[in-house]
């Protein structure tokens, strides 16, 4: 520890360079922190225990639907307090780039999801208007929609049975606003009556996309999920009951193996970082050869000089890395908040910190080993003579 001021002095020798290096390390570990959050978010579907809403979907594919008749059987499972259901309805508004997030929802949907902030009056208006939809404030504001407007949507999958066309014309009967900032992402959605959707789409009725089951006691969620899946075991529509988070992720997982993508990005970033800082450290040692020779003259052993340079490298990476990870920790909730819950990044846990710190030490060691070796092998008489 008493040698620390020597390391500090070495780092302060070129403040600008040290600061820039620390910043690049910081950026790399900030990215590591955020991406690790993404990776964790995508790999952990969350545990069933403690969750009061369960999503029952096809075990095989999220695009495979379930028979409507299953809803009542799920409702009859002991511990299930309330059931509702929904279907995904793909479509765009005017231009293909305006892809809308549209769900056809069953009755009682808002009882299961108070998060939407849909008032009883709005829910009533929807229920009593066959072609009615409720639009979230975000999407309504974006396109300037108001209650009472007609809303033409081009369906991407489902043609309208009565017109034979893919254009569906809805009536906006309300614009809802999520009360909590964390749920702002819900305001991107458009919700329509499942009953209308079911009758009017050309692909036949009686199908629901997924069923939502609200349980009475979250402590028993795991057992209830098992009981629900048992209902359709060995049928042609076997189900998988999961947390909402996991269900949402299965949509995102359609994009690809996020874990692999994240690992590849982190790998590339750290490869670059190691080349950069490795070069910086090599340069830093080259410049300090007379000083290192002086230390050896005074009686520092080769091993001590090696340790000094090695320590300098590890310390440099640790400073930048810890700052970066701390910043990521601070930013996570802000990203989650700013995205209105669209991006749900988990707080950086002790596992990520542990992994991050291990990574810092590893990078510092890899980057430091060659310059440290060079410093160790330095011959004093040659260095003193400037050879």
């Amino acid at each position, binding site marked *: 520890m008493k040698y620390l001021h020597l390391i500090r002095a070495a780092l302060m020798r070129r403040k600008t360079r040290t600061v820039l290096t620390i910043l690049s390390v910081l950026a790399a570990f900030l990215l590591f922190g955020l991406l690790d959050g993404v990776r964790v978010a995508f790999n952990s579907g969350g545990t069933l225990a403690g969750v009061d809403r369960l999503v029952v979907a096809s075990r095989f594919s999220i695009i495979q639907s379930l028979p409507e008749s299953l809803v009542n059987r799920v409702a009859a499972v002991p511990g299930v307090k309330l059931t509702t259901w929904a279907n995904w309805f793909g479509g765009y508004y005017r231009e293909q780039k305006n892809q809308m997030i549209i769900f056809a929802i069953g009755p009682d949907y808002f009882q299961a999801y108070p998060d939407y902030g849909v008032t009883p009056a709005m829910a009533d208006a929807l229920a009593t208007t066959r072609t009615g939809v409720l639009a979230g404030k975000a999407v309504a504001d974006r396109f300037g929609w108001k209650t009472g407007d007609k809303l033409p949507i081009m369906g991407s999958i489902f043609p309208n049975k009565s017109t034979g066309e893919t254009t569906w014309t809805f009536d906006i009967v309300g614009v809802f606003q999520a009360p909590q900032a964390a749920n702002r992402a819900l305001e991107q959605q458009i919700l329509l009556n499942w009953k209308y959707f079911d009758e009017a789409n050309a692909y036949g009725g009686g199908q629901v996309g997924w069923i939502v089951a609200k349980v009475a006691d979250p402590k028993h969620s795991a057992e209830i999920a098992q009981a629900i899946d048992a209902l359709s075991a060995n049928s042609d529509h076997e189900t998988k009951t999961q947390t909402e988070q996991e269900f949402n992720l299965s949509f995102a997982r359609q994009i690809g193996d996020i874990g692999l993508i994240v690992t590849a990005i982190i790998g590339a970033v750290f490869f670059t970082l190691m080349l950069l800082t490795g070069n910086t450290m090599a340069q830093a040692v080259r410049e300090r050869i007379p000083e290192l020779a002086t230390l050896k003259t*005074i009686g520092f052993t*080769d091993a001590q000089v090696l340790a000094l340079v090695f320590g300098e490298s590890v310390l440099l990476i640790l400073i930048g890395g810890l700052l970066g990870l701390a910043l990521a920790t601070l930013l996570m909730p802000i990203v989650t908040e700013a995205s209105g819950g669209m991006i749900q990044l988990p707080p950086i846990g002790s596992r990520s910190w542990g992994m991050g710190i291990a990574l810092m030490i590893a990078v510092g060691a890899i980057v430091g080993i060659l310059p440290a070796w060079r410093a160790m092998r330095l011959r004093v008489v040659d260095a003193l003579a400037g050879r």
Partner: protein
Amino acid sequence: MSALVEIRDLSKAYTRGRQTVEVLHHVTLDINEGDFLALMGPSGSGKTTLLNLIGGLDSPSSGSISVAGTRIDQLGGTALAKWRAAHVGFIFQFYNLLPMLSAQKNVEVPLLLTKLSAAQRRQNAKIALQLVNLADRAAHKPAELSGGQQQRVAIARAIISDPALLVCDEPTGDLDRQSAEEVLGLLQVLNREQGKTIVMVTHDPKAADHASHTLHLEKGSLVESPP
């Protein structure tokens, strides 16, 4: 007086590719305890080479050197480093201070290798700086000091662990006359009052006058007087 440094039949050769150049030829020399020896000679005659061997910075090709009874030519790298830390102080032409550290911290550096506490290190360095008359410059960095002042800081650093032997390679080579005199006066005081044995390489006859005697190196061999 007993010999502090005993050099016997010492040779040093450097190998450059296939060529071997012998820089020192069979040098035999005793340096007594309390001596202030000046080493003179033309450029390339091997003065620095000999001084580095005496200070344990390099190892000879053949022959022996013992300092205070220790055969330093037989010590390995790590043992030699530890021996240097305890027994020799070095003073160079260009001071070789660490540019990022204050005078005080520079003087403390050799003490990092001892068991002294931080407070003791600070205290000893303070005393050493007082000795070289730079107590008021303790907080200055080398760049904020004149050449003569830097060399005095280097002297304080060289004596901080109380070595018996000081080796100086052209300590006044980069100084003006007045600063040189100050530095030489200081070396004289250390030699006379503290009993330091000093070996000083110099090109300057006036500097050599401060020594108790002078030896000349000529193409790697000691000669009695200059040609």
